[in-house]
């Protein structure tokens, strides 16, 4: 056992046990104390630490420690063949794994310049928007939980369970989906999927509206969230905010409309924006985005074209199993693909998708080997979480908790 275990890092704990609770001794001036929010504090919903300096309930400054679940994604990606990276991306923003999966696949497709059938695009849109709904539901219901309203959380989680079932129908897993393959999908949507999707589209709005009316116009909730953790649009851009958090600050940057990928240009949807960039705006923007996602899914499900669920990529998409037996060429391809021996062009490519938290980018450098030479993820959480101290300075601990949950900081994405 290495010696880091022996090291006592008592100060990392949520409260320092060896020290009297002193609201005063820290500094001579005023009643200032330090307070450890995290790493195991219930409000962090994941593991990261904020050391707050507080005066009573008021936060004077804060310092963050991250990296508690650093898992070395980027190093890991340098050691895995291209098709084995999809399961790794699952675990980035685990609330919306399919977006990560498909984003990665599209990056590779961009590198090899593959032609993707329209049907695959539409299937991807459906899956990705479902994932976005799942992601936003977690975030917003957790904002509700942090304000003390637990019941809304249980209502929307029942619907989220249905999204899981949909994913399960396509790929066989609930959360870490490993959905899709380079060039398309593993299998076509089954009739059950279509049926369940229809059911979901029918039942979801009602439950969602219930959730909405439990919180959105409740004065207690509005008082709690308005002016909690605000950030201006300009400052948000400086910090590199993206996604709903940037849109809450009033800037309608959305990768889906700016650099449409996967046929997003075909769909009619609006981009909700907020005004002040506070917790209420973030909450409302996410609520509206869920509605827009529903609209997109409806359009996609209605207009989904016939065709193949995969691109014609013999170098990357595994041949059907019957062919592997009967066809020497297919067997060779099969082996080559699994072993990762197919030729990959050298080059570098940046591709971004609108993930649950905003622009999720993949910077892929390939030297033609079986693994990426370098794969860097643009993890939105990691970049915008640095703004947290600035957002909470001057507000109270309660505000800090709400700001944290409404920022939707996902530890997996934060620490990579």
């Amino acid at each position, binding site marked *: *056992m290495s010696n*880091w*275990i*022996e*090291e*006592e*890092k*008592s100060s*990392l*704990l949520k409260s320092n*046990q060896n020290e009297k609770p002193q609201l005063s001794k820290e500094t001579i001036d005023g009643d200032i104390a330090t307070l450890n929010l995290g*790493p*195991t*504090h*219930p409000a962090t*919903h*994941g*593991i990261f630490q904020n050391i707050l300096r507080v005066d009573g309930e008021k936060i004077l400054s804060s310092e963050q420690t991250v*990296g*508690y*679940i*650093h*898992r*070395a994604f980027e*190093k*890991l990606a340098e050691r895995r063949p291209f098709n084995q990276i999809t*399961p*790794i991306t*699952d*675990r980035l923003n*685990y*609330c919306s794994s399919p977006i990560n999966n498909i984003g990665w696949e599209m990056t590779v497709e961009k590198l090899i310049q593959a032609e993707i059938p329209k049907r695959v695009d539409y299937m991807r849109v459906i899956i990705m928007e479902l994932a976005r709904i799942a992601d936003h539901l*977690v975030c917003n219901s957790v904002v509700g939980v942090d304000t003390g309203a637990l019941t809304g*959380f*249980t*209502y929307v*989680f*029942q619907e*989220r*369970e249905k999204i*899981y079932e949909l994913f399960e129908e396509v790929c066989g897993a*609930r*959360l*870490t989906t490993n959905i899709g393959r380079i060039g398309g999908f593993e299998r076509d949507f089954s009739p059950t999927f279509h049926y369940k999707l229809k059911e979901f589209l029918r039942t979801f709005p009602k439950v969602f509206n219930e959730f909405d009316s439990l919180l959105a116009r409740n004065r207690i909730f509005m008082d709690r969230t308005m002016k909690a953790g605000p950030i201006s649009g300009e400052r948000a851009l400086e910090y590199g905010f993206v996604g709903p958090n940037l849109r809450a600050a009033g800037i309608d940057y959305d990768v889906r409309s700016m650099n449409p990928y996967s046929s997003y240009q075909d769909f009619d949807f609006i981009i909700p924006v907020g005004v002040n960039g506070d917790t209420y705006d973030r909450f409302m923007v996410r609520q509206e985005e869920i509605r827009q996602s529903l609209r997109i899914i409806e359009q996609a499900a209605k207009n989904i074209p016939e065709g193949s669920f995969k691109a014609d990529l013999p170098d990357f998409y595994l041949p059907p199993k019957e062919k592997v037996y009967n066809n020497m060429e297919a067997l060779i391809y099969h082996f080559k693909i699994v072993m990762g021996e197919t030729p990959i062009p050298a080059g570098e490519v940046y591709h971004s998708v609108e993930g649950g938290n905003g622009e999720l980018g993949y910077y892929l450098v390939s030297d033609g080997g079986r693994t990426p030479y370098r794969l860097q993820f643009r993890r939105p959480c990691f970049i915008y979480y640095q703004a947290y101290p600035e957002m909470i300075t001057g507000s109270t601990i309660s505000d800090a908790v709400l700001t944290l949950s409404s920022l939707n900081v996902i*530890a*997996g994405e934060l*620490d990579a």
Partner: protein
Amino acid sequence: MGKIEDLQTINGEGYQLSRLEHVLATARANSVWPLPFATSCCGIEYMATMGSNYDLARFGMERMSFSPRQADLLIVAGTISKKLGPILKKVYEQMAEPKWVLSVGACASSGGIFDTYSVLQGIDRIIPVDVYVPGCPPRPEQIIDGIIRIHELVKNEPLRRRYSEEYKHLLHDHNIETNE
């Protein structure tokens, strides 16, 4: 650490708990308050387990204790990195006896897919684990399975076990301070 057979042979008690002990242990098993140490993906599945569709409350476990003092069961769900290891250990030390540990998911149990320089290859290196739940992340059904296994352990545990020499050795092996 925690096979049922092991428990029963400790203290030479044989396989039979006394009747009173049995009642008390059963009562205890029905009131295991969890401390969710959820770090990543498995935490989301744990949330789903708490939700309406699987309802952990049926086991009397909806009362989550984020304070280690009040918890009986440490549910470690998600990747534990080496940076986080000492914290996990500290939380375990802060829990009051009797305490159990459920390791949920591949990452917590063995490091899973993350065989990397920064990830702890299984939390059993720093704290004793009672039940392992496989899966990445496990389905709620599997988490409940694990919890039922924990209940089995609790139901068969003599009240004296936590004072036994074997138990002290176990803690000593993991460098865990007692009597904080």
